[in-house]
């Protein structure tokens, strides 16, 4: 059981036999575990799988097994298991008899969105749903107890339930959920205002780490991702969109490839893309490679990384199109009068999502029905996209959402591959068309993490205290690209994520007497979008790497320097100390090893990291990474540790990779030129989960932003204080080994 101060330490590395046996035992029985994905359904009825639907969230079957309905998408982050735990905790069923069922957006709509939001992103899955799904579990429990109460004619208050067995002490009677289900399903749902949820100190399942319900299928290969969709009569499509963003497709010469074996057609998909349809993906892709295509690249063809850098640089000192989100004291005077001034410009490139499962979608369109099978973070968005593109009424459309081979924000707000597949399928009514993007297409047609630079100026007094800090980000705005109307008064605060004054979501953890934080919007023609962690990534690099520079200039230890500024932010301090303690910050390191530290807040959670590196020539080896996070409540600690470990890999991608621009187009199109973290590069990761139980913070994204700055700070220490300011590492001739 967890207490308010207990820290959970979970190490990665090879699972010892003991750990394996222990965690298997938690899952136990395990025979009924599984998933129920909707097959192509003719009706909008969600199957009750042979049981009784107590309420929208819970089905109980005669054998006492419980089916829990899950609304969000599983993209490896473990939300399915976590959400099931939330329901099961209140339901008081036998966890070993739980299986999960997902449903389609059409079924959600048909029931007036009883399962609410299906969109998965922003580290929201648990924290946004927890209350109403727990209420769903509690309501179902209450109805089952009421059924027992009615059957035995005893007050509900005299009943006890544990693991789905209901008992009445006075009479000695017992029964089980399976026997009560049919009656319970007929009862009216209790008003959520009439009951309360369990006190976290009474949790039996939440805070434990039951095995994920999808691990076995992933390991034994039986799992089916979107890209594994196979339908009778299916044809394959390979697509190419204009390599220069904003350019147009002029023409193509189908005659050059139409005689090749298996080629069915060459189609114009929209203003900017052409696709080849064939009886195998290989044939479609190979033909597309040699298809003569004429593009009108347009004005953006003259853009390059250099032209973009020039624009960003201008923004760093411009008086135009810039706003201050924080302006405390008088930063100009403070820095002017400072004993020591430190100034730096940092830069972070575009990076690509690089999901292991490239973008794909299978679509089947007829005159009166359109369906897609697609890995998506938002099945309702896929459904809406299909309806929009085919012009069919939404009730005639459906989207099936298998588990994703990576989402990271690429598959949420952008359903471009769904539109494309539906547009192609419209030209082949009745035939399922499986559209797959090649890696090259995927990597060069991403919605990239926005590029940016940051100018930071700090002033220190005689005692080496920070008296003034001026920070200005000059970079591309995601909102300006996807939803400019969401920018209030021309001030895009979202790009300053992690620097906000207000508590709760992504608050700046430092108190500086004179502080100005500014954002200058400088856009590009490159499409941008949310990349796991979104703006906390580059913002943590800018600030936390600079803090080390300032600490060094002050002659102070980086941890001590931060601690002196963080006293008003106890939760930020808490994780900083937790990471420092676990890493043994104050104890000496073996020769040749150096440490770096970073802390930041995002998605409602607090995170800090300490990295240990060594350097040999230009080769950096990251030996160890300690990450501490406070996400409020820890539903499944092992899963949180897994998310932390995954975020380390993703964070290390962004240290060494970039998506650069030449002639208006993306240069890096595959993993040979876009290096991502490899197994041999991975450090030993130690996760410290330090929940304080007084809020619900996110888990999917918060920890990623401290990975890069902690490693970069360690690298700077290893180089005698020489920082890395312009990412990726290769700009300084460095590489991870």
């Amino acid at each position, binding site marked *: 059981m967890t207490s308010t101060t207990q820290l959970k330490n979970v190490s990665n590395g090879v699972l010892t036999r003991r750990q394996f046996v222990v965690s298997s035992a938690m899952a136990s029985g395990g025979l009924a575990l599984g998933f129920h994905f909707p097959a192509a359904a003719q009706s909008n009825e969600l199957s009750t799988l042979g049981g009784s639907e107590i309420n929208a969230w819970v089905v109980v079957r005669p054998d006492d097994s419980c089916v829990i309905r899950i609304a969000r998408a599983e993209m490896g982050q473990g939300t399915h298991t976590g959400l099931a735990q939330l329901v099961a905790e209140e339901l008081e069923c036998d966890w070993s008899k739980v299986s999960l069922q997902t449903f389609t*957006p059409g079924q959600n*709509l048909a029931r007036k*969105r009883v399962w609410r*939001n299906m*969109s998965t*992103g*922003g580290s*929201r899955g648990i*924290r*946004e749903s927890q*209350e109403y799904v727990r209420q769903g579990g509690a309501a179902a429990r209450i109805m089952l107890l009421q059924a027992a109460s009615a059957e035995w004619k005893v007050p509900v208050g005299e009943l006890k339930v544990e693991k789905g067995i209901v008992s009445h002490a006075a009479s000695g009677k017992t029964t089980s959920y399976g026997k009560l289900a049919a009656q319970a399903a007929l009862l009216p749902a209790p008003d959520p205002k009439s009951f309360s949820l369990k006190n976290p100190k009474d949790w039996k399942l939440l805070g434990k780490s039951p095995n994920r319900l999808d691990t076995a299928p992933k390991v034994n290969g039986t799992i089916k991702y979107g890209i594994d969709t196979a339908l009778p009569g299916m044809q394959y499509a390979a697509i190419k969109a204009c390599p220069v963003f904003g350019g147009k497709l002029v023409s193509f010469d189908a005659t050059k490839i139409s005689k090749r074996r298996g080629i069915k057609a060459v189609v114009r998909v929209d203003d900017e893309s052409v696709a080849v349809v064939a009886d195998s993906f290989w044939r479609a892709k190979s033909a597309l490679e040699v298809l003569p295509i004429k593009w009108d690249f347009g004005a953006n063809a003259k853009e390059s990384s250099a032209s973009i850098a020039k624009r960003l640089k201008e923004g760093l000192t411009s008086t135009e199109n810039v706003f201050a989100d924080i302006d405390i004291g008088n930063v100009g005077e403070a820095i002017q009068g400072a004993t020591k001034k430190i100034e730096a410009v940092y830069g972070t490139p575009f990076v690509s999502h690089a999901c292991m499962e490239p973008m794909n979608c299978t679509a089947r369109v007829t005159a009166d029905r359109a369906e897609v099978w697609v890995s998506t*973070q*938002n099945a*309702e*968005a896929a*459904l*809406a*996209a299909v*309806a*929009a593109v085919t012009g069919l009424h*939404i009730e005639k459309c459906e989207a099936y959402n298998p588990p994703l081979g990576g989402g990271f*924000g690429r598959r*949420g*707000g*952008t*359903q471009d591959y769904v539109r494309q597949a539906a547009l192609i399928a419209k030209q082949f009514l009745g035939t399922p068309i499986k559209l797959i993007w090649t890696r090259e297409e995927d990597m060069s047609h991403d919605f990239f993490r926005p590029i940016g630079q940051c100018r930071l100026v700090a002033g220190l007094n005689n005692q080496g205290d920070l008296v003034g800090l001026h920070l200005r980000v000059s970079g591309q705005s*995601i*909102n300006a690209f*996807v*939803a400019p*109307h*969401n920018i*209030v*008064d021309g001030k895009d*605060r*979202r790009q300053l*994520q992690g620097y*906000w004054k*207000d*508590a*709760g*979501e992504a*608050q700046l953890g430092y108190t500086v007497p004179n502080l100005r934080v500014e954002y200058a919007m400088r856009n590009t023609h490159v499409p941008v*979008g*949310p990349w796991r962690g*979104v703006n906390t990534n580059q913002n943590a690099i800018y600030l936390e790497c600079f803090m080390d520079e300032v600490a060094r200039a002050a002659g102070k230890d980086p941890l001590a320097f931060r601690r002196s500024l963080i006293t008003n932010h106890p939760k930020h301090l808490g994780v900083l100390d937790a990471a420092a303690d676990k890493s043994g910050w104050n104890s000496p390191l073996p020769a040749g090893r150096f440490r770096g530290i970073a802390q930041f807040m995002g*998605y*409602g959670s607090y995170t800090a990291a300490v990295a240990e590196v060594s350097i040999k020539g230009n080769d950096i080896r990251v030996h160890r990474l300690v990450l501490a996070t406070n996400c409020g409540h820890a539903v499944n600690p092992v899963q949180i540790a897994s998310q932390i470990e995954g975020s380390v890999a993703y964070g290390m991608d962004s240290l060494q990779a970039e998506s650069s621009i030449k002639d208006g187009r993306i240069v890096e199109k595959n993993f040979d030129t876009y290096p991502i973290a490899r197994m041999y590069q991975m450090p030993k990761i130690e996760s410290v989960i330090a929940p304080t139980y007084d*809020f*619900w*913070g*996110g888990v999917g994204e918060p920890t990623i932003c401290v990975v890069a700055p902690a490693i970069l700070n360690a690298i700077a220490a290893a180089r005698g204080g020489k920082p890395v300011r312009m990412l990726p590492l290769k700009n300084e001739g460095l590489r991870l080994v």
Partner: protein
Amino acid sequence: MNLRRRLLWALGLGWGWGATPALFAQHVSQEELLRPYVGINSAQKGRVKLEIARLADNGFNVPLKVSVQSPMTAQDHVRRLLLLSNRNPRPLMAGFEFGPGSDQVLISTRVRLGGSQTVYALAQTSDGIWWLDTAEVEVTESACLDQT
């Protein structure tokens, strides 16, 4: 959920105890949305029918149809019809006025919706009474943004 958090939730504000002001567009209450038009009066449901899809793709091009039951005579007609959004940066999306040559009020158009919201069709009949219909629309492509 206590009242304050419920209110914050309804306003689409953040996840913690602290409110994050003006980070993103917030939903306006019905009273505040209609006040500039109906003043101290209220609008009643009826006569107006607003048809719009429950799910909208990206919010840039959302078709809608609105009709108002009225004989459209000189004595009994619809003076004006307004389309309002409780979330767009400019709440008034379109307004329509009808002359004596107008027949049945049946209008189709396409609107921009800046995120999931409630769309209002507000009509005033010649007797000065305001009539209302509303529809909730989920704009799905905005959904992966950090905010809802």
